């Protein structure tokens, strides 16, 4: 998207075909994985769960990226939509016995509406103020989930326990393996839709609004309606991610969705690469992997190199973040693209 086209169109075409072939190959391997592994235990159920969580976070990061990367609106509160999506799924399954597949469109719809409605007054807010308002959302929602009169539905601070669905049709897959497939399919569909949206007229209007809102208005674009709608779509993505999270994690509670989650999604978007679809995937991996292991790795590292001082948990996370932002200001996706371009120039020249 930000790459400067200098190569001949033919070369660009070839490289695009190559990328597509690679991507499809990769996805096929990813989809075949649970079937190949089967019940051999060669890849543990726990690992499949971890992979699923990465993909779920990738969907959430993509959602925020649509808003921030492609439309220029900052949110420090998308964890709130994640929570709403997760609770929608959990409540529908627990109290109404709804099929887990159906909770996804339900979470999507509810989060779209809430996101759109939140996006409307947010139109008056720019930059820092929007960041603060969304931050308020991130703070308020977990508290609201603890609200006494909602307890019959939400079960208060205790949260709701769920049971992971089994693989259907007698497929020889564990629940974790099956849900990994479900998450993968949903993610592919949502990335595909995002790509189509961005390549369409409304997608280009989104980017125009990001680049110069006033000029976009003078081009006949209804910037207010667009911004609110993009807010809704962004919330929809994060809500679906939240619903999937509830199903695969088999648990929701207010404390699973504290404001740190919002920050983690934002960090994932920036580290992966703002305004980049591959960046969202990298961001999702980053959220799950670094976040979950930074603590343990900090301890291991301290022991391994016999550091004379005791590193606090999260130290590694902080350091990684600072280094990444300095080394790759365009995120990992941007950094890789630049590296790739340099390698090709070397080969060519």
């Amino acid at each position: 998207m930000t790459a400067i086209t200098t190569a001949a169109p033919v070369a660009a075409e070839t490289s695009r075909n190559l990328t597509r072939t690679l991507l499809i190959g990769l996805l096929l391997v990813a989809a075949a994985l649970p079937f190949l592994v089967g019940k051999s235990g060669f890849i543990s159920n726990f690992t499949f769960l971890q992979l699923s969580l990465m993909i779920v976070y990738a969907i959430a990061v993509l959602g925020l990226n649509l808003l921030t990367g492609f439309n220029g609106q900052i949110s420090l509160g998308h964890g709130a939509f994640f929570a709403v999506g997760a609770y929608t799924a959990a409540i529908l399954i627990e109290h109404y016995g709804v099929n887990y597949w159906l909770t996804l469109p339900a979470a999507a719809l509810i989060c779209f509406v809430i996101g759109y409605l939140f996006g409307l007054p947010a139109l008056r807010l720019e930059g820092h103020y929007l960041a603060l308002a969304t931050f308020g959302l991130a703070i308020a929602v977990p508290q609201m989930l603890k609200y006494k009169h909602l307890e019959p539905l939400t079960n208060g601070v205790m949260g709701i326990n769920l049971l992971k669905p089994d693989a259907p049709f007698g497929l020889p897959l564990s629940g974790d393996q099956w849900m990994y497939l479900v998450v993968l399919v949903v993610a592919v569909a949502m990335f595909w839709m995002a790509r189509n949206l961005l390549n369409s007229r409304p997608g280009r209007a989104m980017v125009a609004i990001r680049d110069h809102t006033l000029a976009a208005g003078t081009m006949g674009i209804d910037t207010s309606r667009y911004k609110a709608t993009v807010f809704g779509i962004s919330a929809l993505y994060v809500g679906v991610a939240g619903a999937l999270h509830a199903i695969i994690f088999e648990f929701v509670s207010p404390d699973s969705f504290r404001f740190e989650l919002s920050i983690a999604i934002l960090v994932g978007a920036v580290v992966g690469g703002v305004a980049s679809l591959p960046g969202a995937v990298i961001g999702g991996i980053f959220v799950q992997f670094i976040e979950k292991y930074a603590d343990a790795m900090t301890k291991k590292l301290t022991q391994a190199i016999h550091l004379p001082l005791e590193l606090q948990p999260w130290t590694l996370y902080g350091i990684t973040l600072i280094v990444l932002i300095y080394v790759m200001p365009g995120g990992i996706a941007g950094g890789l693209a630049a590296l790739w371009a340099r390698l090709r120039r070397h080969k060519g020249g």
Partner: protein
Amino acid sequence: MAPLLEISSLRAYYGATEALHGLSFSIAQGGITTLLGANGAGKTTTLRAISGLVRREGSIVFDGRPIDKMATEDITRLGVAHVPEGRGTFVGLSVEENLKIASYGRRDKSGVRRDLDLVFTYFPRLKERIAQQAGTLSGGEQQMLAISRALMLGPRLMLLDEPSFGLAPLIVQEIFQIMRRINEEAGVSMLLVEQNAALALNLAENAYVLETGTVVMAGPSAELKNDEGIRKSYLGY
């Protein structure tokens, strides 16, 4: 002939501050009118008020239709194209996408194609750079793109906010010549805001001079140009 744009008692506000204090002026069909004045006089605000980009009061009639209550996108659809101060390039989009964005609201697809060809006859340089990311264009090229984008709206009136800003004299000359051609060949009327009064008075038939949100001087360009008193006290050259 009735004027294309007629403005009376126009006030505009940024928050609680009033930036225009009751402006009145009009623009003839087919002509070029320039709006001159010192920094902060309210030129940009006037254009924004016409386009509905700031809160405004008073009457703005475009081609017999009141537009002072309308939203920006509707005003655009009526044929008012605003080339904003600082060019307003969509830096993340290609030149082609910048141009096509203007035509999203248009139904006449053949008209869109015709206007795209027209744009390329005026600015062949943009055709060569059709796939280039707009943010990497030079300042002059970005100004050409901004004017072209406005042309793609199929406008009757173009509002141009300091198109010469920050450009080398040769490029400015080139752009101003093309603006004249657009006016004469495509019949697009223009309201031109300029710091460079000499340049603007050469292009425009009529001129208004603004001072702190009010019109202080009006007349045919030739008269303003030839009156040394006016030149010295209002135009600073």
